[in-house]
């Protein structure tokens, strides 16, 4: 769980628009990704996400536990996306060449989305050197060579191993703060 979410939500409830903007900044990719993975087109996903944010804002007083916001966003977006997708299909609005994916995502995928979001959030909180190293090693699928990476980071190739260990330790600490510890 994101530690500052409780404070941020308290500010939103107090009418602090800057807090709302920060909330949107933090979670907009999560909401948009759920809508897109449910098979919505870019424009439909934008509309779906807008409805979700509007619903969250309008029902903010009834939301008791701010820690539940990420899960609420995922499930609400998913439900809206399914409804929107079915409505589009019934209205025959989709073009023939568009992929007709099943909009219903399995539960394990929704859980994985939340985990994925938190891992990406943890990466944002790493220092730039560690972020670059971890992203290059685990996300870029070997597109960057050790030599290129060491040049980009500004250390010798021999220093990458120890730096990697230190970065993974930092990441483990952040993941624990975000509630993604193993236990």
């Amino acid at each position, binding site marked *: 769980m994101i530690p500052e979410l409780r404070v941020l939500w308290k500010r939103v409830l107090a*009418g602090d*628009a800057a807090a*709302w*903007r920060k909330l*949107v*900044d933090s979670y*907009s*990719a999560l*909401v*948009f*990704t759920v809508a*897109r*993975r449910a098979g919505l087109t870019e*424009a439909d*996903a*934008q*509309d779906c*996400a*807008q409805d979700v*944010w*509007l619903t969250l*804002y309008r029902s903010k007083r009834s939301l008791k536990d701010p820690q539940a916001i990420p899960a609420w966003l995922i499930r609400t977006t998913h439900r809206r996306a399914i409804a929107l997708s079915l409505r589009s299909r019934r209205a025959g609005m989709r073009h023939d060449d568009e992929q007709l994916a099943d909009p219903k995502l399995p539960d394990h995928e929704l859980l*994985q989305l939340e*985990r*994925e979001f938190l*891992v*990406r959030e943890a990466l944002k909180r790493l220092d730039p050197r560690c972020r670059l190293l*971890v992203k290059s090693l*685990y*996300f870029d*699928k070997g597109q960057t060579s050790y030599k290129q990476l060491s040049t980009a980071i500004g250390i010798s190739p021999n220093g990458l191993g120890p730096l990697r*260990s230190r970065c*993974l*330790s930092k*990441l*483990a*600490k952040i*993941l*624990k703060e975000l509630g*993604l*510890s*193993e236990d």
Partner: protein
Amino acid sequence: MDARKLKTHGARNHRSTASVKTHHSLRLLREVGNSPQAWFEPSPASAARWKAIPLIEKVTERTRPRSGRVAFDSWDMAPAVALRNIADGHIRRLELKAGRVSLEIVAERTQDHWEFVGRIYANNEIQNSYVLKVGRFNLLPRTNGFYHWSSTSVPRNLRVVSYRNNLVFGGIQW
């Protein structure tokens, strides 16, 4: 166990705990890194629309209202050749301006109501961070910055609100 052994034992324990934690991070990184599914970032324009949501209920009190003017009105022009068999006056195109911000509206009269489509520009760029207030409607822009609403009545007053601007277009004659 002497102090040296204890220290070594402690260090080993520490190392193994760290290794378990790192192993967990690695597993998560590989899970995310190997995910075949893409992660989608919304466009800045969409994010701007979602950030403007609080403006639907709250007017920026700290921002002084600024009055705008009609910069263009198609009803002031000489009647054009009939288009799509629509009688003159059924469509009205308005451009309302306040400083560098302009609101363009196309109003079309149907049998029993009016259809309105609007868009806000600043320095010729479409704006997504404004809420358009028309009577009881508080409208957020949709895709490509379009505002759309239907009504049986025509708006005499419009307000365009962002976190920085509070623009009032009043006294529009129909």
